């Protein structure tokens, strides 16, 4: 790409993003409170906060109900720990835009995360999976709409395809999923090592691994990563998706302008198993998921949300049979 084209591209994005912000700001902010735990926007779409857990062990969940009868239900599987912060507003934007296409959405915080009960060091892939199942059952009854799919970022993507395996025919949208447990742990340790370097101390990955084995827990920038959590990543291959035929949308958000090899292999293996997978590559500077402290400016306005949110809504909107 020539310099002139790149500059023009950036300036056009800059203008389009500003217009998109204005449009959202005007529409969404006109929501009003209907009940203590429910707001309705001008289109009639509702957002209701509910407890989808059991007595004494609440799961914070948000039901997004469209103005018209919902054509299908999409479950959002959030990643655990710091990655949830990075992705949270994107998930909310997705839910809100999906209701404008008459799709119902449920978002939730797994136990040990966000506003839900439990402690962060108790989180494993298994506990998140169980919470997804509870919330899916709860939302299917509450929203009275057929389940059509799951969407998840990072480890949420793994939870999404594992949950889809239990629900025949459901589609999956992955947002930069974690498909390699070793690489993920390496990334976590690297985040901690860089954090420590900034504080003037020095620790390496081997020491962190040893600490995890010895003490059962390691502190990654304020998130308690437990041995049980690490072990849960290695129990089964993270890229073990169910057989097709199913629909999928694979989104890569990283600096690379083309689909990276491991992702390409994953998509190819899905296609071999009769999945109909679309891919979307969003080249941006989203590399530090775990260490990132980005606020709305970083994760909402930028081009990632603008691309990934409408494309994912479009993907679920076009699924046939609902």
């Amino acid at each position: 790409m020539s310099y002139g084209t790149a500059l023009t591209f950036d300036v056009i994005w800059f203008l389009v993003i500003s217009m998109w912000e204005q449009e959202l700001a005007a529409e969404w902010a006109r929501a009003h409170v209907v009940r203590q735990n429910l707001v309705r926007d001008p289109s009639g779409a509702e957002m209701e906060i509910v407890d989808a857990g059991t007595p004494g062990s609440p799961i914070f969940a948000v039901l997004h109900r469209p103005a018209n009868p919902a054509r299908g239900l999409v479950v959002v599987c959030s990643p655990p720990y710091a990655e949830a912060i990075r992705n949270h507003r994107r998930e909310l934007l997705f839910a809100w835009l999906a209701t404008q296409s008459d799709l119902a959405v449920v978002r939730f915080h797994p136990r040990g995360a966000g506003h839900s009960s439990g402690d962060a060091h108790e989180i494993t892939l298994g506990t998140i999976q169980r919470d997804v199942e509870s919330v899916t059952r709860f939302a299917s009854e509450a929203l009275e709409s057929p389940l059509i799919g799951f969407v998840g970022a990072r480890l949420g993507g793994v939870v999404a395809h594992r949950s889809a395996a239990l629900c025949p025919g459901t589609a999956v949208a992955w947002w930069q999923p974690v498909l390699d447990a070793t690489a993920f742990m390496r990334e976590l340790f690297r985040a901690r090592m860089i954090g420590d370097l900034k504080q003037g101390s020095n620790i390496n990955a081997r020491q962190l691994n040893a600490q995890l084995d010895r003490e059962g827990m390691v502190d990654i920038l304020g998130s308690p990563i437990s041995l049980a959590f690490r072990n849960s990543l290695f129990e089964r291959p993270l890229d073990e998706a169910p057989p097709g035929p199913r629909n999928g949308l694979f989104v890569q958000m990283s600096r690379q302008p083309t689909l990276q090899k491991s992702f390409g292999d994953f998509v190819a293996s899905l296609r071999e198993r009769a999945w109909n997978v679309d891919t979307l590559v969003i080249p941006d500077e989203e590399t530090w998921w775990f260490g990132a402290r980005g606020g709305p400016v970083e994760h909402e306005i930028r081009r990632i949300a603008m691309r990934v949110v409408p494309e994912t809504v479009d993907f679920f909107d076009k699924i046939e049979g609902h």
Partner: protein
Amino acid sequence: MAHLSETFLFLELEDAPRFAVVTHPTAPESGIGVLLCNGGWISGSWYFNRFYVKLARSLASAGHLVVRFDWFGSGESPGFLRSFRLDEPFIEDVVAAATQLGSCRAIVGVGYCFGATSLLAAANRIERLAGAVLVSAVVPGSGPRARATKATVRTLMRSAVRLSVIKGWFNPNARRLYLKWFRVRIRAFFQRFRQPAPNVESRVSMAKRLESLTDRGALVKLIYGENDSNLRTLSLEPFATLAESGKLLIEVLPGDVEGSGSLEIQESISRAIEDAVAAVTRSYAS
């Protein structure tokens, strides 16, 4: 001990609803309400690493009623927010959240960074505010955005012709940064022709608010980390004089409070906040 009991609710405000969580006491009630105002740039009132969730539940186990909330356009609150500005605190959000503590004899506000600025700005509208704990409070007008807004055309022109900047136009990340600065400048230019925002905070007004709080007899505690860039707030006038007057309780914790990037520092901050709340509780009990 009673089970955890939290009420999730939306607060009706003129511009858009705000999401709030009320954590009910799980021990005999102290009559003290605690209002948690999170920093602006992190989405969600659970705050980074769930710091405020753990703090709220811990305070509730000591008998306090606790409210945390999401700012306009962040967390679960509807709306779309372009950016937080330290000199434009969200007073209405704080006041609306404080109404949930109406049954309490006294209120202690806790604010982190942007939350500290907003809490201070709203202090005179919260009647029973008996204490304010300000963590990593930062002075408006000292951040990079303020520098971008204040830079003169001459300074900018000089910067623009620097070799590194010219090279930067060929780097997509640097180019985006320049466009961002450009937007800040454009916004600053048009703001000259607008009515000034009603809630503009400055270093002087913030110091005055701190002073008036202490004059009211409220406990005011400032918490910083020894590695925080915001710690320099205390060396800037008129804060330096105020800090030396002894009216403020100042606690400097080891490490980086600003980022709260370890479990250890989170525990230290929690302890410092809980100590302040306990001090207010004791003074009301006696």
